[in-house]
């Protein structure tokens, strides 16, 4: 059974290599490629699901080639699986399977190396989740990254994808190299690359400047991947141009993996050594809430539907980080559930947009106004998933967010969460109402719009008269899974299980014991206050307020021309266009400048709080 750990990454890697080697044989039988890729993804999902089940009682470790540590010194390389890490990897494999099924009829030709790249991407994500070694973390990060850059530029004959992929690749590479610098520094100080061994060293020595710098540098790459302001600029550029089945994985899992990496680094490696729990909590809470607000504002003003969903991912990433940053088991459990619910509904939304692009040849909300009425089933899926994204009970998003709010028990945090939920939900519901039901006033003809409307021509097949079932079923299934995640987590037993898993994830001594001495830690003494994870009246009321606010905002955005308060000819937010274009400029030089400024600021703050 232990071989499952190794198989979960070797199977996709070997399959990718085999597909690459035998590709010429399948030039006329592209369905073989589709079948192998979808089958491998599903097999990995099953293997990882089994790992989640098996580690639900206690985390376990797998040592490659049986090189076990002795006397606290690690000489081998390990995979460490717990319910949260294996669960996130499993989520990635499920989304991969769905997008493989979706792309069955989506791409015009077998084209290029899509399946190979998707499989290496899957291996990178799985390895990143399971690895217990900081250098391997970097290697999996880069494997995932290189596959993702190539997938973004899957249509190199167009302008947008090249520009988006360049920004994505350069920003993420700079982040990754700073991470590697941090890893080298920590190796120089501790002589170890294994997370548990580093943690054992760091927690028994007073925090030095070098440890703080190493922590800062390592999380920089992960903050870039996690799209936290001001490291987030690449995300909208890349998501807007990547093929839609790839966007599903970018938004649903890849961004969350960056945040998972930060959580892993903090709890498994540096947490005890750094100390200053309250200050670090406040720092990351501030970063998360800033990201949530910035992402929500940009989301609401966007008209390119894929970019709109990308900005909503930034906003949600901020809320996930805020959940982690509470440093409580309930906060982490809430973030984990929120990530799951969000991944399913966001994936369903992206697939629905993919169907719109396939049938109507555009993702411009203004141009699409009312034209989506030809796609009633897609409209229903999009609308249901949009309500899921707006945290309608009992979607997984609602309960996850509710747990984070319960754990914080701070009215201002709840207020910011509601505001972001209203903006993001309002934006997505506005798209649903305008595009699929023709609500609101028809937009005026905009000269720029017609030019922008049909720029996404090369991605998918010629517009067809019918939507293939292989596209509708994955989208509908993902929306249903988003609902099921919330319903399942309402069961007290499952909720308690998630919270216990979160408490174990946060217990550094238990992690060290699991890895270094193969201990079977089933019960941890929670170092942080434990609050029961259940459905509170407060969270239901908050979520309903948020959904109602989002629906009202969406209607207001659709019918604003009729509002008596506004003078004629007024365009909301018209004066902000220039500053916003300068901020989100699309120029890689600016993005790197923001990255450097962000690292310097974070370093300054960390230096002030940790002495």
């Amino acid at each position, binding site marked *: 059974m232990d071989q499952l750990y190794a198989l979960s990454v070797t199977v996709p890697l070997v399959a990718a290599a085999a597909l690459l080697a035998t590709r010429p044989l399948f030039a006329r039988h592209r369905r073989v490629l589709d079948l192998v890729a979808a089958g491998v993804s599903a097999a990995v999902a099953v293997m990882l699901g089994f790992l989640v089940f098996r580690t639900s009682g206690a985390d376990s470790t797998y040592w490659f080639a049986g090189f076990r540590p002795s006397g606290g010194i690690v000489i081998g390389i390990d995979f460490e699986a717990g319910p949260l890490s294996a669960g996130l990897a499993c989520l990635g494999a499920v989304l991969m399977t769905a997008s493989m099924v979706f792309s069955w009829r989506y791409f015009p030709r077998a084209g290029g190396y899509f399946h190979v790249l998707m499989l290496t991407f899957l291996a990178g994500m799985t390895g990143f989740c399971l690895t217990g070694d900081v250098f391997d973390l970097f290697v999996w990060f*880069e494997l995932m990254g290189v596959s993702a850059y190539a997938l973004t530029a899957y249509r190199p004959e167009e302008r947008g994808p090249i520009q988006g992929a360049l920004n994505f690749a350069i920003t993420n*590479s700079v982040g990754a190299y700073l991470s590697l610098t941090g890893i080298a520094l920590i190796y120089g100080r501790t002589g170890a690359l294994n997370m548990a061994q580093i943690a054992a060293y760091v927690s028994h020595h007073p925090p030095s400047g070098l440890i703080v710098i190493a922590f800062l540098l390592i999380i920089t790459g992960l903050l870039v991947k996690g799209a936290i302001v001001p490291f987030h600029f690449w995300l909208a550029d890349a998501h807007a141009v990547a093929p839609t089945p790839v966007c599903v994985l970018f938004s649903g899992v890849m961004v969350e993996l960056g945040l998972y990496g930060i959580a892993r680094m903090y709890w498994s490696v540096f947490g005890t050594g750094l100390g200053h729990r309250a200050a670090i909590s406040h720092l990351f809470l501030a970063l998360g809430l800033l990201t949530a607000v910035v992402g929500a504002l940009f989301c609401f003003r966007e008209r390119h539907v894929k970019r709109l969903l990308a900005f909503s991912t930034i906003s949600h990433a901020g809320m996930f980080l805020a959940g982690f940053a509470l440093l409580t088991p309930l906060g982490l459990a809430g973030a984990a559930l929120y990530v799951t619910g969000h991944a399913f509904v966001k994936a369903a939304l992206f697939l629905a947009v993919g169907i719109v692009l396939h049938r109507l040849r555009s993702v411009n909300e203004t141009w699409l106004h009312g034209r989506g009425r030809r796609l009633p089933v897609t409209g229903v899926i999009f609308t249901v998933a949009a309500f899921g994204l707006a945290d309608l009970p009992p979607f997984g998003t609602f309960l996850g967010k509710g747990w984070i709010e319960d754990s914080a028990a701070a009215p201002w945090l709840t207020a910011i969460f509601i505001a972001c939920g209203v903006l993001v939900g309002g934006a997505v519901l506005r798209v649903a109402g305008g595009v699929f039901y023709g609500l609101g006033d028809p937009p005026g003809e905009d000269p720029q719009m017609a030019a922008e409307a049909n720029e996404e021509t090369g991605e998918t097949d010629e517009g067809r008269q019918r939507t293939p079932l292989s596209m509708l079923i994955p989208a509908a299934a993902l929306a249903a899974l988003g609902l099921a995640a919330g319903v399942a987590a309402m069961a007290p037993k499952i909720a308690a299980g998630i919270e216990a898993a979160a408490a174990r994830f946060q217990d550094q001594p238990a992690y060290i014991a699991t890895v270094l001495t193969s201990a079977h830690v089933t019960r941890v003494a929670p170092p942080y206050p434990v609050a029961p994870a259940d459905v509170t009246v407060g969270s239901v009321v908050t979520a309903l307020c948020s959904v109602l606010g989002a629906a009202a905002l969406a209607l207001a955005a659709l019918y604003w021309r009729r509002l008596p308060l506004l003078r004629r000819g007024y365009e909301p937010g018209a004066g902000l266009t220039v500053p916003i274009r300068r901020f989100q400029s699309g120029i890689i030089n600016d993005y790197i400048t923001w990255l450097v400024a962000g690292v310097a600021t974070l370093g300054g703050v960390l230096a002030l709080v940790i002495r």
Partner: protein
Amino acid sequence: MGIVPFLVVAWIIVAGLYGIVTSRDLIHTIVCLIVVQSSTYVLLLGVGYVTGGAAPYFWDIPVGTRAVDPVVQALALTDVVVEAAVTALLLAFAVQAQKRFGTLDPSQLAEFKG
């Protein structure tokens, strides 16, 4: 060796980042990215250096001889592989950018924001 390698590393990182921030040409940007990555080679090898240490091949030297750390050398090698992959991909993107946009200036590429 003391603090010198770390100062060199910091200098290389800053020089590379300055190059990326002020770049007017994508090829220049990509080369500056390589410069940033080169700092990690210096850092890795500097971290594992032992004054007077032999090469860590315990084939023709007796076990227990003072040797430099072989782990960082393996890491640096892996790092080189990663760099090769990333650079090749980025240069391919740059070729496509030149074909589609007719320019390699990052600020003009941004005109066609996707």
